């Protein structure tokens, strides 16, 4: 619907542009070029006059008998003049009746005169005064006729020139209009495109937000805001694939006394307690640590460092979670048991091995009376038989 409207608007704009441009174009096409005919006419008259003058001079030379022009040359000048008069006759087809009114009698007179003196010219001899007089009389009349034709042509040419100038001004204005309209059209198109671009950008932004929202939903535990099991599994896969390398330590944290909170206060209280635990866990772990809620009251922590660093983290976690916690006027006391395992890079699946070992260590920690952290290596060595010795100093602290 909106799309159709858009195309309609664009079409209307284009049609309006074409219509406006057509008007302007007719203004440009209106320039008349008929003044060119008068320019040509004047050129022809000038040539006619030139040939007339040349013949007159040649005839004078032959009459004087000064030998500078032969009788043949003089007669050729006469032939050329003759041919010129014919041209003027034909040319009149291009010009207006007013001009013809002047031209026709003059040209008739001119060809008449030429015919009359034809035999005289052919037989002109030096000193032949009568012949010379006849030629001169005809030529003087011809000069007058040419003068009147030239005058008429100039007048007409001038009139047309003024007209043409006015038309040219209209044409220039029309061109200005076309350019202006075109610029407006281009600007409108640019604005439209920019608007479309912005809309696309907004759409992209909305899509990007939705995408990150979807990622958040699939990777984040909705209750605590911590990473969920799925994200944790992905990170474990990254370890197995070798894209997450380093001296990794895993801490499996299981809350002590949470079942009691849930049973006595209900699930709502349990949820609130889990949220508080999540913030305390975040506060206790070093930066760059993976922290995920694996389900229920079980959490996993993975970070790089030595087993001593892991023990330090475990201590901080136990201390943090053991702090008194009050909710709805009731005070809850919970603790944390932690199983620790270090990465075995040579295992077929290092992550599975580490998780399994951490799980065993956690089991041991629970068995040792909770509120303590146990490293898997302690299980494989004799101290495991002396539970009181195996409890880490931090865990003892936490129990205290």
């Amino acid at each position, binding site marked *: 619907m909106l799309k159709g409207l858009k195309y309609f608007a664009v079409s209307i704009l284009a049609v309006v542009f074409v219509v406006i441009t057509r008007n302007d174009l007719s203004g440009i096409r209106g320039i008349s070029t008929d003044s060119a005919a008068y320019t040509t006419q004047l050129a022809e008259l000038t040539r006619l006059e030139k040939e007339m003058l040349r013949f007159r001079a040649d005839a004078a030379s032959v009459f004087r008998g000064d030998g500078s022009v032969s009788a*043949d040359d003089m007669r050729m000048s006469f032939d050329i003049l003759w*041919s010129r008069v014919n041209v003027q006759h034909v040319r009149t087809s291009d010009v207006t009746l007013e001009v013809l009114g002047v031209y026709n009698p003059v040209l008739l007179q001119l060809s008449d005169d030429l015919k009359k003196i034809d035999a005289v010219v052919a037989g002109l001899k030096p000193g032949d005064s009568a012949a010379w007089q006849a030629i001169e009389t005809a030529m003087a009349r011809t000069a007058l006729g040419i003068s009147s034709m030239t005058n008429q042509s100039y007048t007409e040419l001038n009139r047309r020139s003024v007209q043409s100038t006015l038309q040219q001004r209209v044409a220039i204005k029309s061109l200005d209009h076309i350019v202006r309209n075109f610029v407006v059209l281009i600007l409108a198109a640019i604005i439209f495109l920019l608007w479309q671009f912005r809309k696309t950008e907004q759409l992209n932004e909305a899509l990007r937000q939705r995408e990150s929202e979807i990622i958040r939903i699939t990777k984040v535990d909705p209750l605590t805001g911590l990473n969920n099991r799925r994200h944790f599994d992905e990170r474990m896969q990254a370890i197995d694939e070798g894209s997450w390398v380093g001296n990794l330590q895993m801490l499996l944290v299981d809350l002590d006394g949470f079942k009691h909170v849930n049973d006595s206060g209900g699930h709502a209280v349990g949820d609130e307690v889990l949220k508080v635990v999540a913030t305390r866990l975040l506060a206790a772990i070093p930066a760059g640590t993976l922290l995920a809620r694996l389900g229920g009251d079980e959490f996993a922590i993975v970070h790089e460092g030595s087993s001593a660093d892991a023990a330090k983290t475990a201590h901080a976690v136990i201390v943090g979670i053991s702090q008194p916690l009050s909710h709805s006027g009731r005070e809850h006391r919970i603790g944390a048991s932690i199983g620790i395992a270090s990465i075995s890079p040579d295992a077929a699946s290092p992550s599975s091995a580490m998780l399994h070992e951490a799980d065993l260590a956690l089991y041991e920690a629970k068995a040792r009376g909770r509120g303590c952290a146990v490293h898997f290596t302690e299980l494989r060595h004799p101290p495991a038989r002396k539970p009181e010795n195996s409890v880490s100093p931090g865990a003892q602290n936490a129990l205290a």
Partner: protein
Amino acid sequence: MRAVFQATAVVLALTLPAIGAAMGAATGPAVAEAPLYAVTGKVAAGTAVAIHEADLKAIGKTEIITSIFALGAGQHRVSGVLMRDLVKYVGGTGENVKVTALDGYAMDVPVSDFMNYDVILATEIDGRKLAIREKGPAWIVYPVSQHPELNDTIYEARSVWQVKSIDFN
């Protein structure tokens, strides 16, 4: 006959002195053999070529029916040689020829015109040999009736009459 005499003088002035002398020596018959016009400049002979009536036959005469600038709207039987045949005949090279008339009028004409159109260097119109008074001895005629696009002041200006010489430059 006066025209022919004049044309002889023109060509004599343009040709090599040796040729001029030879033609001048044969006074009587030379008049009958007087050339119509001359072709000069970059031609195969390396010098001016005088075109006679006999040359026209060698080149091959052509006839078309067309209207002619300066003769109004009527159709005329125009006879002469095709300009492109003349170019071939004299072995002329160059992009333009400068066509000069008896009265001094001169106009550059592109050789491509002759290749694209059947441009005729007319020596006869409606069966009459062109005298100077009828714009002879030769007249460049475009086939305006066959090609309406030729009805243009440019081609009108190139339609030189009273052709005296054609110069390849």
